[in-house]
């Protein structure tokens, strides 16, 4: 079953770049740690999309295996990261990253 005759790899690359840029902009622009976390997830998904597009281009399943492992690492990262965020909120009562300035001289 061959679908997508006229959608080429650079369509997917453009979409992937757009999503990655949105994620980078969100991490730099927002101060809420949870929103920044979600933007990191968005960036990971942009990379996943590019990898699946490459996998389709080469007719090879290796790209999809990479996406699989990225999902594994993302799930582990979210579990630990949200636990850290809970500790942060318990000690500071905020998730604002600007309040984490204790190392500032």
């Amino acid at each position, binding site marked *: 079953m061959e679908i997508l005759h006229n959608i080429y790899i*650079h369509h997917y690359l453009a979409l992937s770049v757009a999503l990655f840029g949105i994620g980078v902009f969100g991490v730099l622009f927002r101060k809420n740690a949870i929103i920044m976390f979600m933007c990191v997830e968005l960036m990971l998904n942009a990379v996943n999309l590019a990898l699946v597009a490459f996998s*389709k281009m080469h007719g090879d399943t290796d790209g999809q*295996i990479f996406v699989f492992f990225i999902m594994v690492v993302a799930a582990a990262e979210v579990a630990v990261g949200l636990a850290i965020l809970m500790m942060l909120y318990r000690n500071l009562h905020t998730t604002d990253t600007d309040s984490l300035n204790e190392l500032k001289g």
Partner: protein
Amino acid sequence: MLTEYAFWLLSFIAIFSGIATIISKNPVYSVLYLILTFFSIAGHYFLMNAQFLAAVHIIVYAGAIMVLFLYVIMMLNLNQLEIEKRSNILKMLAVASAGLLLVILSGAAHSADALTANPNKVTPAGMVEDLGIALYRHYLLPFELASILFLAAMVGAVYLSKKNLNETQA
């Protein structure tokens, strides 16, 4: 023809809800828009014959990760609107650096014109069978190591979310 319309529609939904994720004031709306983005990305996987990945993506991201986000937002009671006070210089720097990165990346993607998909090549279907053969034959060691990673992450998450971390250490 229909799949092209599906591509453009899914791309529009993905980018629109991605932007809505970062400009929503309420974190709960951000989570919901991000779930919409993930569903459209799963639709893209489906269009690219990666059906197994599409299913796993929905189960893992929309089913597990975003539910975890919603739980944390609910427990921390963060759903009230907050005014973010960030200086204008920092905002402009954020816009400039993100825009520059976008320009660089799109330049790199634009120069990939030669990488058109070969329609004559047989695309392997991303079903469970193909992925399973690759995963258990060539990638067995990373697959097993992933379980150790999960175990470590689970221990870390449980330990970090203990109520009184200092008292239990004594």
